[in-house]
């Protein structure tokens, strides 16, 4: 049954996550990762695995904690609050879920326990040069050669590719009128000869992106994930879930911005009074609070709908993504405005949230894209 609140276990998870992140993921760590080409450390990943996060929603038989998607969204809200860097969603959602849903038992046994215990980091390489996550954008071909498929081509905007040990690669194996038909998923080891990973310098340096080039990579049959030509629906399902989690990250990030601004507005004195006593600042903050409240409600609805596999889950995620994206951008923009000059400096953390808001808005389609999908519900 759909439940909008937070139960006691979830409260505990939230508190634990906040404590963990305060200790292990301070801004000094995040800023160090911004300067790191890989964007994460093995050490940090191990710590997350130790508290059970890297397998949070995986079944127990694969070493997971078997918790719910709503639990995961609560965790992601806290991660967003701290603009946590690293391939968390890439690994656990965009890679592990397709393996869980489409994989053979052997594939599950090979990958999932290692993801759960933190030994393996993964990412999905889907998007190409058009930058959009959609089946029409998947044009990199995989050619059959005996039992194998040979991959040649490039993927762009691949998140977390340098940190990943394996890639889940979407390839085109058939051209058809329906672009969803003809996409095949391949599991590829990053260390394969012929794979080149080039960093793409990003505005939000906490979220690394790369161009990955595949030069005649042979994928044996055992690393084809799911049925040939039928791979898109697993990616689509994973992306729906990843999008719902990004909504949680955006709400969490927005909360940090609001709290930081309220604190600043209470203490920063100009013209003989705290700036928070001026209506202009007050009303900015009231607007931020209001939009965040509704963004949070939509985010919770989206997470619950996904958890329950509700038939309206798509719509809920479309709505949450559009609204949370707009809201986080607005809130982070005002975060800089309210702080004035200091909020515009590199040393202040506000720009990390501002840039994160821009990065998350584009991932899996921006607000305009999701609104168009909503309209299609009413066509």
């Amino acid at each position, binding site marked *: *049954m*759909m*439940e*909008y*609140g*937070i*139960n006691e276990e979830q409260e505990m998870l939230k508190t634990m996550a906040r404590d963990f992140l305060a200790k292990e993921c301070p801004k000094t760590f995040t800023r160090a990762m911004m300067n790191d080409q890989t964007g994460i450390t093995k050490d940090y990943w191990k710590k997350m695995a130790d508290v059970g996060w890297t397998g949070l929603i995986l079944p127990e038989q694969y070493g997971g904690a078997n918790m719910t998607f709503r639990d995961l969204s609560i965790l992601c809200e806290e991660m967003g609050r701290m603009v946590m860097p690293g391939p968390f969603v890439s690994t656990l959602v965009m890679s592990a879920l397709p393996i869980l849903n489409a994989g053979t038992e052997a594939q599950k046994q090979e990958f999932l326990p290692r993801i759960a215990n933190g030994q393996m980091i993964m990412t999905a390489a889907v998007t190409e040069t058009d930058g959009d996550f959609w089946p029409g954008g998947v044009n990199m071909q995989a050619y059959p050669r005996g039992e194998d498929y040979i991959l040649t081509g490039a993927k762009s905007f691949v998140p977390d590719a340098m940190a990943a040990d394996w890639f889940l690669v979407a390839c085109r194996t058939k051209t058809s009128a329906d672009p969803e038909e003809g996409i095949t998923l391949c599991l590829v080891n990053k260390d394969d000869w012929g794979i080149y990973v080039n960093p793409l310098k990003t505005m939000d340096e906490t979220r690394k992106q790369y161009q990955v080039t595949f030069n005649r990579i042979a994928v044996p049959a055992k690393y084809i994930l799911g049925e040939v030509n039928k791979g898109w629906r697993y990616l689509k399902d994973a992306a729906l879930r990843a999008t719902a989690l990004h909504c949680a990250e955006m709400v969490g990030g927005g909360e940090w911005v609001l709290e930081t601004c*309220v604190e600043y*507005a*209470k203490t920063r004195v100009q013209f003989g*009074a*705290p700036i*928070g*006593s*001026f*209506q202009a*600042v*007050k*009303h900015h*903050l*009231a*607007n931020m*609070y*209001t939009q965040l*409240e*509704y*963004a*949070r*409600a*939509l985010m*919770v*609805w989206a997470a619950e*709908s996904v958890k*329950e596999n*509700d*038939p*309206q889950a798509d719509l*809920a995620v479309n*709505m949450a993504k*559009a*609204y949370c994206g707009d809201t986080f951008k607005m809130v982070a923009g005002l975060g800089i405005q309210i702080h004035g000059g200091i909020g515009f400096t590199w040393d202040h953390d506000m720009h990390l949230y501002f840039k994160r808001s821009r990065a998350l808005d584009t991932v899996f389609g921006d607000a*305009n894209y999701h*609104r*168009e999908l*909503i*309209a299609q519900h*009413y066509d």
Partner: protein
Amino acid sequence: MVSEQSGKETAFRKQVRDWLKTNLPKGWGTPEYHAPERQTEAAQALGEKWTKTCYDAGYAGFGYPKEYGGIVRPDWEIRIIREEFTLCGTPPGPMSQGLLMAGPTILRWGQEWQKKRFLPKILNGEESWCQGFSEPDAGSDLANVRTAAVRDGDDWVVNGQKVWTSNWMFADFGLLVVKTDPAAKRHRNLSYFIFDCTSPGFSRRPLKQMSGESEFGEMFFDNVRIPHKNLLGELNMGWYVALTGLAAERSGGFAVGGRSTARRGWGNMESIVELAKETKHYGKAVWDDPLFRQRIAQFAIQGEAMRANGALQGAMARQGKKIDPNEVSVSKNFSAELRQHSDDMVMEILGAYSQMVEGSPLAVNGGDWVYGMLRWRGATIERGTSEINRNIIAEKILGLPREARGND
């Protein structure tokens, strides 16, 4: 969304649904049924009758103790009743401030005799209420109230004028904020009374609004005698009593949702989509224009956001978490501004037809879209302006310092 429920719940849900089928006004919910949208006597009569029907069947009157006429039921039953009522879009109640303001205020501050005398007839819709807060010089700021009461034996003698009175035309009783101590300071000089609208010296008249209707009225007090026992709360502490009612009123926002209105109208996403599909500009359907698709989708998002936020707060309340009472300022602003934005969008969809009002043979939907747009320009003013509510959010919820003010 609907999950496994106990057989008990399923049976009860069916019972409510059957009752609604039998008891709703004939034709209700079909496009043919034209519900009265404005403040006519027919609308009032329909509302009163519907309230009584629901109350008599045990489907209303929740949240009040039994001894004051309240109907007590398990929470899950109330939840199912509300869900089913919302799903089928039941008629609105009468235009009374009774359930909205008088009930919560009397329950919180009333003397025993007041609760016994007034609450049951508020709950069953038998008696209709209004309130007298605003005055020409006291809009957002109650401190400017000039209507004054002077003690005379067991009575208070009231003189003055109130404006922006909802339900001024049908009310049997009213709530009244008056100055009872001209010498005292702000927040310590007002008292709160219940008055009888048949009192000698009391008169009322319509206040015509920009929509052309007179939903609001003015009330005049010319040596009106109010018995001292009608005092609500302590003498000179009426400012604090008034807060209860204002908060309750603010929370009585607009109902928005996919299926919550009975006919084509504002809160109904489907009817806006239908309008966009039916309307062409320069030969092309509005619904095919990505610009309007985006804006209508945004309206759908915000409507669902309100529903989801209500569900979230409901869940938190059930889990025993305290909801800040100032949250009503958040939902009030959000719904009022959403209403105005969507009205503006509908006007753009209507194009030249947005000029056609009731009485024009070309008016769309009987002119209700346009009437609604005009009527709800007041949404960001009445029940606390958007600006005042933003101050409340900033100061009461976020804890920001008050601004330097001339007095206080």
